[in-house]
C-alpha cells in the first residue's frame, strides 16, 4: 500500500465511469460542487470530466484559501512587509497574489524582506534565529491548516519568542457553503466534501448541509479514483432521493473531529464576528483570530494594520467563478489579460485555483500521462 498509485488505475476509472452513467436517470442533470481547490486540481490534471456523462456537471467551489482572500488583506500584508525590521513569511502561493499596489513578490523586489516558508514552524525558527527581526507569518487556510498555526503560536508563547506574530486569515468551511446555498439562484445538487479539511473536522460537520439544505455530501480523497467514486456515491444518493453525509475517504477521515487538533485550535483562536471573502462579501462568524491571551503574537494587535478595504479589479470575475456562477473560460479576461504569469485575480494564482487549473490542463495535454495503466 502506497496510498497514491493504487487510486490512479485507468481500468477502474472506466468501470466507475460506466457505473456513473448507468446510475443517472435519462433526463437528469446533476450539478455537483467540489468544494476544495485540491479536487479542482485533480479534476483538471487527470481529465476527470472526460469520464463523466453529460448528466453530471462539476462546479468549482470556494475552498481554495488563496482564491478567497480579499485584496485588502493582501494590501495589509504588503503594508506589514514594509514596516521597520519586519520579515514577512508566507506560503509560496501567496507571493504572487496581486494587491492594489502590487504583490508581495513586488514588495520583495522593492527591498522588503519577504520569505517563503513551508511551515509556520519555519517562520518561528527564523524569529528565534534572528532576534533583531520582527517576524510576521501571513497565515491563510481552512481547518486543515489552522492547527499548524495554533501549535506555532503556542510554542512562541511558551518559549517567549516576542518577535513572532501571525497575521491571521484562517477561515472555516461551513459558513461559505451556507453563503453559496443561501444565494437566490443556487443551482447545486450536492457536494464533493473536502478531504483534508475533514481529516480535522470529521464528517459530522457537514450534517447541516444534508439536514437543513437537503444536499448530499460525500467527503472525498484526492486521487482520480477517489473523485470518481465520490461522484458515483453522490449520483446514487440523488437518483434514489437520499440526502446524507457519506465518507469516501475513510482511509484518512473519521466521522468525528480530530480531538487534539480541535483542542489546540480552541485554546488559541476565537471566531471573528465577520470576515470579508472574495466573491462572497462579508460572511459572519466565518474566520478566526488569536484570543486576547495570545495578543502578543497577533500581528493585528502588535502593529497598526490599516485594515484596507480594496475593491477587486473591475475586469476580474473571480467572485462569480468562486460562487460557481461562471466557468473559468467564461470570465472575460481568462487567458487574455489574466494568465498564470500575469494574474489579475486570485483564481489564476494558486495551482488550486479553478482558472489556473483550467488554464494549465484544459487542452488535455498532460491528463493522458497521469494515469497508471496496468
Amino acid at each position: 500500500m502506497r496510498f497514491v498509485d493504487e487510486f490512479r488505475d485507468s481500468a477502474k476509472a472506466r468501470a466507475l465511469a460506466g457505473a456513473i452513467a448507468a446510475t443517472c436517470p435519462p433526463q437528469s442533470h446533476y450539478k455537483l460542487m467540489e468544494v476544495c481547490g485540491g479536487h479542482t486540481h485533480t479534476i483538471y490534471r487527470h481529465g476527470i470530466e472526460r469520464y463523466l456523462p453529460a448528466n453530471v456537471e462539476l462546479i468549482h467551489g470556494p475552498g481554495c484559501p488563496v482564491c478567497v482572500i480579499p485584496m485588502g488583506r493582501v494590501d495589509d500584508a504588503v503594508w506589514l512587509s514594509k514596516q521597520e525590521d519586519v520579515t514577512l513569511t508566507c506560503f509560496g502561493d501567496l507571493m504572487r497574489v496581486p494587491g492594489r499596489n502590487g504583490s508581495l513578490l513586488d514588495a520583495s523586489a522593492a527591498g522588503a524582506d519577504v520569505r517563503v516558508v513551508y511551515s509556520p514552524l519555519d517562520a518561528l525558527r527564523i524569529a528565534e534565529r534572528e532576534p533583531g527581526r520582527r517576524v510576521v507569518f501571513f497565515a491563510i487556510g481552512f481547518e486543515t491548516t489552522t492547527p499548524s498555526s495554533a501549535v506555532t503560536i503556542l510554542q512562541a508563547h511558551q518559549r517567549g519568542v516576542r518577535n513572532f506574530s501571525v497575521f491571521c486569515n484562517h477561515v472555516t468551511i461551513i459558513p461559505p457553503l451556507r453563503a453559496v446555498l443561501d444565494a437566490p439562484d443556487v443551482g447545486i445538487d450536492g457536494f464533493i466534501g473536502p478531504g483534508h479539511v475533514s481529516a480535522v473536522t470529521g464528517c459530522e460537520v457537514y450534517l447541516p448541509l444534508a439536514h437543513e439544505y437537503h444536499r448530499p455530501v460525500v467527503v472525498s480523497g484526492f486521487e482520480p479514483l477517489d473523485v470518481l467514486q465520490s461522484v458515483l456515491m453522490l449520483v446514487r444518493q440523488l437518483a434514489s432521493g437520499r440526502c446524507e453525509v457519506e465518507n469516501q475517504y475513510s482511509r484518512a477521515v473519521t466521522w468525528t473531529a480530530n480531538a487534539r487538533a480541535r483542542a489546540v485550535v480552541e485554546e488559541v483562536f476565537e471566531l471573528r464576528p465577520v470576515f470579508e471573502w472574495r466573491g462572497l462579501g462579508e460572511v459572519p462568524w466565518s474566520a478566526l483570530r488569536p484570543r486576547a491571551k495570545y495578543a502578543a503574537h497577533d500581528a493585528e494587535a502588535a502593529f497598526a494594520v490599516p485594515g484596507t478595504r480594496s475593491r477587486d479589479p473591475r475586469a476580474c470575475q473571480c467572485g462569480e467563478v468562486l460562487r460557481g456562477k461562471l466557468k473559468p473560460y467564461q470570465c472575460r479576461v481568462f487567458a487574455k489579460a489574466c494568465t498564470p504569469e500575469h494574474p489579475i485575480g486570485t483564481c489564476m494564482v494558486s495551482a488550486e485555483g479553478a482558472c489556473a487549473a483550467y488554464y494549465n490542463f484544459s487542452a488535455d495535454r498532460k491528463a493522458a500521462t497521469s494515469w497508471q495503466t496496468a
Partner: protein
Amino acid sequence: MALRAPAATTVRWSMMCLGIPALVVEIETPTTCWVDVGGARRKVNTSVLDDAAGRRVAPGDWVLVHVGFALARLDPDEARSTLDMLESMEAVYTTELDALAGSESAGG
C-alpha cells in the same frame, strides 16, 4: 526550510492544501517524528495527531502530512476495502462488457 522569494519571472506551482502520505520511520520526541516521503526523510510535528485506539504513532504507520504536521493516520484496512470495492466494480463492468461483446444483438 526557508527560501528567499523566487525570481519574478519563474512561476512555481505549489499546493498549500496538499496532504502527502508519509511513512513513519522513527519517533524522535512525544511531539515529533521522522517520516519517509518518496525516499526523502523529513521531520514532522505529531502534536495534533489523534491517538488510535489509545496507541501513539509508531514506526511503520502511515500519516497524512500537511505543512510539516501529521494531521491524520492513514488506515491501510480502510484503503484496502475501498480498493476491493473498486476492484469488484471493475470485475462486474468487465463481465458486462464481455457479455455485451458476446451478445448477438449488440451493435446490431
